C-alpha cells in the first residue's frame, strides 16, 4: 500500500492546491461575450441570460447563456447569434462530467455556425454524433435549437 501513497500523494497535493482556484471553467461569460463579439462596446441585458451586443448604437447580435444536462450534470454553454438570427459561435463554458467532454471541441462546435431557427439541428442529420458522448451531443444540440427558437428572431 505504500506505493499507493507514493504515487497518489503528488496528485493529491496538486489537486488540493489547484482546486480552490475555481471550477474547470473554460470561459467566463464576459470572456465568451468578448470572443463572440470582439468589436462590441457594450452588452445590454435582455433578460437574465441574454444580452444584446452593441458597438455604440449598432446592434451586432445576441449572446445567450443556457445549460443542459449532459450525461447527468449540467453543461453551461453560450450561443452568439448574429443580426440575421444565425449562430455565430457556440462555446462550452463549463463541463462537469467525467466522460463525454468531447462536446467542448471546436471541430464539433463549429458545426453550429450558420444554423438558424429553421435548421433541422438533429444529431446524425446536420450535426455529427460524438461516439461515446451521445447524450451530451444530443443535449447540446437540443439546447442550441431551443436558444434559436427563443432568441433567433430577437437578434434581428
Amino acid at each position, binding site marked *: 500500500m505504500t506505493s499507493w501513497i507514493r504515487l497518489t500523494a503528488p496528485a493529491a497535493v496538486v489537486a488540493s492546491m489547484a482546486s480552490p482556484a*475555481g471550477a*474547470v471553467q473554460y470561459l467566463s461569460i464576459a470572456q465568451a461575450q468578448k470572443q463572440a463579439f470582439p468589436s462590441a462596446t457594450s452588452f445590454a441585458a435582455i433578460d437574465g441570460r441574454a444580452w444584446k451586443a452593441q458597438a455604440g448604437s449598432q446592434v451586432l447580435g445576441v449572446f445567450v447563456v443556457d445549460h443542459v444536462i449532459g450525461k447527468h450534470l*449540467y453543461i453551461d454553454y453560450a450561443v452568439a447569434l448574429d443580426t440575421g438570427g444565425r449562430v455565430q459561435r457556440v462555446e462550452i463554458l463549463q463541463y462537469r462530467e467525467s466522460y463525454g467532454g468531447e462536446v467542448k471541441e471546436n*471541430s464539433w462546435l463549429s458545426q453550429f455556425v450558420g444554423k438558424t431557427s429553421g435548421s433541422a439541428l438533429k444529431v446524425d442529420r446536420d450535426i455529427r454524433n460524438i461516439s461515446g458522448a451521445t447524450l451530451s451531443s444530443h*443535449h447540446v444540440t437540443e439546447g442550441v435549437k431551443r436558444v434559436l*427558437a427563443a432568441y433567433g428572431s430577437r437578434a434581428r
Partner: protein
Amino acid sequence: MSIRTGVCVGGTKRRRAFPALIAAASILTASNGTAGAAEDASSASGAQASTDALMKKLQAMEQRIKSLESQLKKQQPAEPGRAAKPAASNTAGLESGVRAQAAGETPGKTASQAPGKAAGQASPKAPADPGMQPKKPILGLLDSPVEGLAFGAYGEVKYGAFRNPDAGGKWQNGFDAHRLVLLPTYAITPNIIFNAEIELEHGGIAFDADDKRHGSAEIEQMFVDFKIADQFNWRAPGIDLVPIGFINQRHEPTQFYSVNRPEIYNGLIPSTFMVPSSSIYGRLMDGLSYQIQISTSIEDFGSGFDLRSDANGVLAGGYAPGITGLSALHDSRPVVGDFRQLSNTMAYAGKLDFRPSFLPGFAGSVSGYFSPNVTPRGAFGDFGNTLGRASLGIFDAEFRYRVPDTGLELRGEYAQVFLGKPENMRANNDTDPTNNVGKTMYAASGEIAYHFPLGTILNSEWEAVPFYRYTYENLQTSGFAGTDANTPTGAGQLQFHTLGIAVFPSPKLVLKATYQKVINRDPAGAQSDSFLGGLGFFF
C-alpha cells in the same frame, strides 16, 4: 428563465384564484338577492343605496375577473403542455446560476439556492421562450432535491434462444434481467465530482432459496474526480474502469448494436473490467485526450473466497486459473473489497483517444495495460511445483467511423494479451490439458452498420441500425510451457459471425435482435449459437 418561472408560479396561483373569485361572486350575488327580499319596504331607499354599492363592487370584480382571464389567455400559448410546478426550480436555477457566474460565483453553488427569490423577481414583461426546458437531473424525470445531485440509470434485458454447450448444444429458451444500474452523481463543488455505479445483475440476490436469485449486487464504480484543469484532472482512489478499448468504459447498451457486448470484451478485455485504482486524465488538445491509471493487478486466480486463505494467499488443494486459453482473462479481475487482494502488485494502464479534425466522424483509441506480476501469493501447480512471477500486458487499438452525410458506420478493433512467463500460469499447471495458454492471445474484429431514420413515431425520432460484425479470436497460440500435458481441442480458436438490428426509439433506448454463429476448432463445435432479443436503456 426566472421570468418564465414567475409566469408559471403566478399562473398557478391565478388559476387557483380564478374559481375562488367566481365562487365568491356567486355567494355575494346570492346573498345580495336574499337580503333584498328580506328587506322592509320602509328601508327601501337605504337598501337601494347599499345594493348600488354592492353592484359597483360586483362590476369591479367582474372587471378584475375579465382582466385575469385575458392575462391567462396570453400566458397559456407561451407554455404549451407544460406543467407549471416542475419548471420553477430548473429555470430559476439557470437564472440564478447565470447571474452568479456573471458575478464571479459558480452556478453550481447558487443554482438551487434561490429558486423562490428568482420566481419572486419574475416580471410580466418576460419574453415567452418556447422550449427552454432544461433536462431533469433525477432519472430525467424530476428536479434534484439536493443541489448538485443527479441520478441516471442504465440497464439491459435479454431473451431468446441459444444453444447450450453444457446440454450437448441443444437449443433452449431463456430470459435474463442482465443488469440494472443506478448512477448517482454528486457535484460536491463544480470541480469535485462524485460518481458511482450501483449494479444489480441477473435479477439480484436473495438469501432465501425459494426466491431463486442467482445474480449479484455490486459497486461497479465509485470515485471522486478533482477537475483541476482541462489538461489535468485527478480521479482519487476508488473503484474505476480500466481505460482499455472503447466498450469497457462506455459499456452502456446504447453504445453497441448487438444484444451482448462485442466478443473482445468478454475475455481478452474482461469487461466490465473494474479495479481499485486512481488515475489522471485530461485533454491535451482538441481531438486528443488521455488517461493514465494505476490499479491493483489482475490475478491468475479464478476461484471464490472459499479458496483464499486468511493470509491472502491461495489454499492448498487446487484452485481455478484466472487466465485460460478458453476464457482468456474473464476470471482474473481483482477483488475490490475487504483487503483481500492476493498480491501487492500494482498495474498500470494508459489510453489515448483521438478524433482528428481532418477526418470528421472518426474516433479511435490506443490503450495498454501492464502488470509486472499476476501470480497470487502461494500459487502452485498440481504437481507440487511453486509458480513464480508472471507478467501480463494488454494492447488494444480501435476505431469508430461514421462516414459524414451518410448512414454508414464502420468499427474495427484489435486486442492482444502478452503473457511474460507461460510456465508460471496456473492454467498450464492445473492438470487440465485443454485450457493451456501460450505466449499471447489476440483478437480482431470488423463491423459495418448503417443508420436508417424511421421518422417520428410516438413523439420521438426512431432509427434502425442493421449491422454485421466478424470477430476472430485466438486464445491458444504457440509458446506453451508448464507441467500440464498440452492437448488443446481447438476451442480457443474462435470465429463469431454476428448479425442483427438495433432499433433506437430515442438515443436513450434501444431494442435489439441479434443472431450469432460461433465457430471454433473443437471437433465437437462451439455449440454456442444464439438468437437473442434485447432491450437496453441509458438516461
